[in-house]
């Protein structure tokens, strides 16, 4: 990298996806302007029924291939502990950022992500039915798993005592196969790992990125201009360090899982 300031790979990914959407929207807009000027019916992609459920989207959205591939729906369920009313709010997402723990797995991180959190004390919930702040239980549920599940492991956390970000080298095992419950389809969504962005280095503000990508049933290791074939079992060497201050500083940071369409069974 010739950059003087190291950039975060996850920030870049989100930037890239948003930029792609912008470009695609502009293209469609341009095509629409053209067709309108020639008085033909507008050409657009309109199977966005899933997306329009999301409250966040007010204008009628354009569904690009970015959305089709990466977009999923989270449900934020809040249950008021006084009146038991459940308020569910859908949110769309392009990726999941997971808190990590030492010697855990993606399965465990996802479980924690969806675990029930109690809102109390200073963090009470305004219940519309009770018309007041109440204690409540909140939980994030993946309602509609995306086609491509992008998981960012939160390895770079701001540590207040240090006044800066610190890299967490925790060992987080990511399986080659994963499942999420699809509450829309009432089935398990089966995923296969196909790419990993690896951060190398002990600090949060510097280091080097490499990636592992599965192509035609083989795992390839990409390090700048060097590409080599690696054994599937070598993926495990990027899980992280079981103990702090390990000499191993190569850690899986962003995981890409693709939904397996052929293997969807009840």
């Amino acid at each position, binding site marked *: 990298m010739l950059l003087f300031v190291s950039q975060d790979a996850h920030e870049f990914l989100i930037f890239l996806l948003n930029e792609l959407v912008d470009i695609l929207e502009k293209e469609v807009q341009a095509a629409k302007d053209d067709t309108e000027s020639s008085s033909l019916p507008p050409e657009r992609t309109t199977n966005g029924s899933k997306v329009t459920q999301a409250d966040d989207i007010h204008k009628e959205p354009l569904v690009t291939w970015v959305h089709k591939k990466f977009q999923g729906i989270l449900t934020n369920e809040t249950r008021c502990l006084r009146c038991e009313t459940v308020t569910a709010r859908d949110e769309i997402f392009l990726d999941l950022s997971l808190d990590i723990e030492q010697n855990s797995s993606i399965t465990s991180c996802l479980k924690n992500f969806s675990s029930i959190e109690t809102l109390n004390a200073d963090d009470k919930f305004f219940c519309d039915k009770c018309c007041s702040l109440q204690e409540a239980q909140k939980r994030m549920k993946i309602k509609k798993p995306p086609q491509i599940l992008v998981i960012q492991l939160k390895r770079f956390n701001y540590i207040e005592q240090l006044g800066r970000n610190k890299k967490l080298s925790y060992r987080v*095992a990511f*399986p*080659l196969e994963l499942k999420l419950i699809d509450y829309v389809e009432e089935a398990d969504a089966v995923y296969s790992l196909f790419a990993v962005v690896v951060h190398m280095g002990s600090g949060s503000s510097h280091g080097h990125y490499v990636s592992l990508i599965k192509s035609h049933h083989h795992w390839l290791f990409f390090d700048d201009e060097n590409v080599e074939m690696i054994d599937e079992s070598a993926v495990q060497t990027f899980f992280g360090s*079981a103990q702090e201050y390990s*000499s191993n500083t190569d850690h899986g940071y962003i995981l890409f899982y693709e939904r397996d369409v052929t293997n969807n069974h*009840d």
Partner: protein
Amino acid sequence: MINSSNGMMSASSSSSAAGAGGNAPSPGLKTYFKAPEGRYKLHYEKGHPSGLMHYVQGKTATQATVAIVKDKPSPPTPLSQPSSGFSASSGVKSAAAKLLGGSNGSRTFGFVGGNGGSKNLSGSSKLGPFSSNSTNSNLALNFDGKGTYLIFNMGDGLFISDLNSQDKEPMKAIYFNNVYPVCHAFDQDAKDGHDLLIGLSTGDVYSVSLGQQLQDSGKKLVGAQHYNKDGSVNNSRCTCISWVPGGDGAFVVAHADGNMYVYEKSKEGAGDSSFPAIKDPTQFSIAHARHSKSNPITRWHTCQGSINGIAFSSDGTHLATVGRDGYLRVFDYPKEELICGGKSYYGALLCCAWSADGKYILAGGEDDLVQIWSMDDKKVVAWGEGHNSWVSGVAFDSSWSPPDTENSEQIVYRFGSVGQDTQLLLWDLQMEEIVVPQRRPPGGSPTFSSGSQTAQWDNATPLGTLQSAPSMRDIPKISPLVIHRVHTEPLSGLIFTEESILTVCREGHTKVWMRPGTPASQGSSNSETPLSTSLKDKPLLSSIK
């Protein structure tokens, strides 16, 4: 960094195990845990030699085997005698002596010929590996054949510890020079000298006499029979090795390419076998060696991808395998037939184990679940949920019996599991208590039925059918009795002995947890008081007596 020098338990200390909480790499690790039957207490710890280079870390995961060496009809003669005195097995030869001389020769221990005899070190030079910081060579010299030993691999070394001694460092180290011993098995009922099997990362396999290794003072394997030399039959990594119970010296080696081979150690091993090419790699197939004199005698092609674990039922009639493809497979071993099997929830399976009565199989893997497979129902009957990472070791506790078995008709099983989350979990399996959630239309109210009812529907499954992954809502879940973080590194295995539970971590450390009621576990130790903050939930059961 390697933490071997911190001396978790010094060799001479008593059973207090005081160090485990206080040393830097083990923050917050408690030296005991409580189960309904009482308190399990860390008795001592076994590790690899402190000088071991850490570059080997991560290359392999440590596996451990407990070897109980009984009285032998003809106890081996101590090494100090001339070579002619060694009589533990037939065919003692001294031809290997010159091969063992070089200290840095690569693989010079290698088996010389094809005639299968044991070889003994005839020279009396004791260039012991323990010259620097160990007095253990005395143990080797006083070796009288009896004892309980812990055998474990780490990097390119295979280590043997006396399980009844408090010494942290092993009494014996055998180095393989840049190839890695990855699995091993011991047969306490071996009829002749060779009772220990060792599988390597190169696919090579050795059989040796454990007693002979302990008598020898060198750092090399001695008197080894070498199979699949230089991977000539199969050059993929050995993953698991097992003696066939009651198999008269037959053993099975599983490899990372989905093949298993059956060997017979009694064979003279005149040459390596050749097998026909595998026609359909997706299908189970058996091939027998073309020549009856060669080893291995049979190839079992079980699956695509690695076989990660194999386990025989105690009577040797059934063989279970688990692998990369996530399937548990159960074979009728004598008939060489696939009986049944099923897929994990997701991901590879890493380990499996039988109940002593052959009715249940445990399997654990990358979905963080412990699955309980019933041989009566030929399906998964429960999932154990409680690990926060991959499940790397499972075992039934065959020494455990429920508190009042006389009044209770139902059988309760105790089993344990360890995971890459560094935790040991103990579970009770009580089939009558397991409730199977009945299939229901979406949105309907949940109703429950007992497991036996649903089992009847599935009994029509034809022989040899592999079941697809169950849905999360169809399998009843059980919760662990005990969750205890035992190491700082991911765990790789656990072993139940009569007196203790052994937990093994990937980086070569084993902890010995004494069962409640054993003398060592009752040794009162004041050191536990600062650690007991989270013990408020239950009264102590064992140490009050």
